[in-house]
């Protein structure tokens, strides 16, 4: 019962958030300089043709009318079509006009549908790496504050947080892929291509996770029920894994929610460096080409992912600690 009411309430809030984000992005995109039709039709297209195409596409209507038309499509699951990309494949950039008619342009939903799984695969692998590493370093550190595991965790996270992701990406690609030939790096021809970018992302994620885990475990270990648990006859292993970790996991989960959302931004640079065909690369190109429908589509999908992740995190947190129910 609680779960249903929680989900209904939060999903309704989430829908509102996504709507506002869409409105904001839509309006801002219409205000920024640069005419997408000029880009689509090519620099050599006559002014009259551009006006005609713009009229046809409804780009000269008031922004709110355009938004209404767009939203009515969105609720039917139609995110529109790319201004630039043909359905057949790669981006044309539109140096000539007339070779790509509207009917052949790619559906935004299809473009996102092709790239999102790639990015999710990368993100989940990165989080898995980061979690495993953070648990291995952070738990011993939290259990012995002030002693050597704690100091190791501190140094490791200090070093990791100081490494810029783009630099680490280049260095690792050079080392592991070019010099040693262990892992492939550029492009995507199979799962192995995900590993290297995931490692780079994990290095960026783990310092904050390690610090939070260390702090929350060491503070969980000072709670009275831990000491009393020992006197009640619970084994040290049970105390740590069934109780301390459980109580320490709520702050970690909240952090993870934020981290995953941040990851979708961090992925931009890394995908660009590794030429990884994910949502990040798609976003960069869409922005460079002023491909309004695509940018909007990506914004809606990403904000929906943010909202869903936060709902999931809050739900899991209340399942772990029922006092958070409200």
């Amino acid at each position: 019962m609680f779960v249903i009411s929680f989900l209904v309430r939060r999903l309704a809030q989430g829908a509102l958030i996504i709507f506002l984000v869409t409105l904001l992005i839509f309006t801002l995109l219409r205000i920024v300089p640069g005419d997408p039709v000029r880009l689509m039709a090519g620099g050599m297209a006559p002014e009259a043709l551009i006006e005609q195409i713009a009229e046809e596409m409804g780009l000269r209507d008031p922004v709110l009318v355009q938004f209404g038309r767009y939203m009515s499509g969105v609720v039917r699951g139609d995110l529109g079509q790319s201004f630039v990309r043909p359905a057949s494949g790669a981006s044309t950039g539109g140096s000539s006009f007339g070779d790509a008619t509207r009917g052949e342009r790619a559906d935004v939903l299809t473009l996102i549908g092709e790239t999102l799984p790639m990015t999710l695969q990368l993100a989940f692998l990165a989080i898995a790496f980061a979690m495993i590493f953070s648990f291995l370093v952070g738990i011993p550190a939290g259990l012995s504050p002030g002693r050597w595991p704690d100091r190791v965790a501190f140094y490791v996270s200090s070093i990791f947080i100081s490494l810029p992701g783009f630099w680490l990406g280049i260095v690792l690609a050079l080392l592991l892929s070019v010099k040693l030939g262990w892992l492939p790096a550029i492009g995507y021809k199979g799962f192995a291509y995900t590993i290297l970018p995931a490692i780079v992302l994990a290095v960026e994620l783990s310092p904050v996770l390690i610090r939070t885990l260390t702090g929350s475990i060491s503070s969980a270990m000072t709670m009275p029920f831990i000491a009393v648990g020992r006197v009640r006859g619970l084994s040290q292993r049970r105390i740590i894994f069934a109780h301390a970790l459980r109580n320490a996991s709520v702050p970690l989960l909240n952090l993870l929610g934020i981290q995953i959302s941040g990851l979708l931004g961090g992925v931009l640079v890394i995908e660009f460096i590794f030429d990884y065909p994910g949502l990040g690369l798609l976003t960069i190109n869409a922005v460079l080409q002023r491909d309004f429908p695509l940018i909007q589509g990506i914004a809606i999908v990403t904000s929906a992912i943010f909202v869903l992740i936060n709902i999931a995190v809050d739900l899991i947190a209340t399942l772990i600690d029922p006092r958070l129910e409200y």
Partner: protein
Amino acid sequence: MNSSPVLSVRNLGVDVGTGAGARPVVSDVSFDLAPREIVGIIGASGSGKTVLARALVNWIDPPLRIASGSVEYKSQNILDLAGGRMRLLRREIAYVGANPMGALDPTLPVGRQIVEKLSAVVPGIDPSEARKRVIDLLGAVRIPSPRLRFDEYPSQFSGGMMQRALIVDALVSNPAFLVADNVTQPLDVTVAAQVLRLMRELTERFDTAVVFVSSSLPTVKEAADQVLVLSEGRIVERNTPQRLIDAPQHPYTLQLISQIPKIWTSEAAAVPRTQNAARPTISIRDATRTYRVRKRGTFAAHSEVRAVRNVTFDVMPGENFGVVGESGCGKSTLMRLLSRLEFPDSGSVICNGKDLSKLRGKTLLKFRRDFQLVLQDPFNSLPPRTSIGAILEDPLRVHGMRNAKEIRERVLAVMAEVELPANLYDELPLGLSAGQRQRVNVARAMVLEPKVLIMDETLSSLDQTEQFRLLALFEKLQAQHGLTYVFISHDLAMVRRVCNRVAVMYLGEVVEIAHNERLFFDPGHPYTKALLSAVPTLEERRYRPEDCLLEGEPPSPIDLPPGCSFASRCPHAFDRCRAESPTLTARNHGELAACFLVGGPGARAAA
């Protein structure tokens, strides 16, 4: 005493720190615990009781260190046992502490954690059998609907319930002995009395010997066969409780006994009746305060917590007015209404003829100046990184004083008045004792020369000696400045000593208002009697707990039953009490009680 002792402690010493800085906390303690015996250990705060209690269950963590001696159980010194072997012995050695709310993991159901403990100390026990045993025992300690309670979380238990659950947790493995460290201390008096009765019953049923550690001699007297008096870590006297009280030998025991408040004997302080003045200082009229909280497990439903219900009383100038009641009775909400931190939903609070909710701007500032609050917790109520002088200067600045020299002089004058040494001016509150901190709190209120001080459990966290000193200070300040005090407290003995008139609250309602003497010698409401029956005192009780209180805890303020809210615990309740709610009825001399038995001829007979 029969057979060989369960536990024998020999020359036990515990130090804090190591090397040259080591200081003994417990030294040279020796005693035996016979099977089924209850040994009480008593001492003031800081006497080493808790450390001793922990040493008995081999729970000494750095910086504490066992310095000497042994704790022998089954002819082995448990202090020498390694972790694993000690852990299996936990089945036979149980411990219940003073902090029931912190003792279990807040994120897991209570029942499951007790089962977890049982299967940790009795490896291989069948889970469904363990579950059944825990539910049976939860019923045995009179937790209502144990099957449902099994799956509830610690935050859904009240303090008293939780302490019962922990007693179940301790006894579930049939231990040979149980160390109970100050188990009744955090509980309300009526609940503490129930828990104490329960412990005695259970130890007989389960054949468990008990070491009962407490700072309250009256409590130990109720429980123990044999009392050890602990002073500065040493046992200074041992005897049976009655002989100890009748003929104490050691000066420390004498001192402990002399500090136990007197309630009914002639030594008890006589508090004068209040003179009725023309206009009351505070007049609270039919005030009600309800909080809305979201109902668990529903979509958008709210339930109403009725924290204060139709409260009406007057406080006269120069009076000491007491508000007593147990936790959750609405005392603190009432304090928030009186100090204008919140407004009543209906009714009004009138101070010096002005309705508080209508005060704005300058008049509000004036009211704040005249009505000052002194809070309960001496540790959290002072900012830790602000010097004491600055803490005391702040209110003066807020109220418009600008001249730095004058401010300093005023602060120093107040510090002298509350007997704080002037050299504390630039100190941080860090090193102060609880009593000194409470003086800083009083000084912070007094610096504005208020007319009314509202004391919300101000003395509860202090030990008897310090309480005496502060009460003397309050008396002096009252004589000098003509102050009016409102004491909000659960401590009836303190109220008996200082308050002219007392209002008793139960579940948000005032059930009785009476002058001091009348309240303690001829209470009009059965709840007042129940409270009096549970006051820890060595005197012959005027009211016996067995006659005054049924088992159970106050109903939740969310789902109030119809009729009198005390009916579920009242031994005199009859049909009418469960149907309609009694209103405050005049007895005489302006004394009121909300009970159908008051006023009618049946009243005397039933009382």
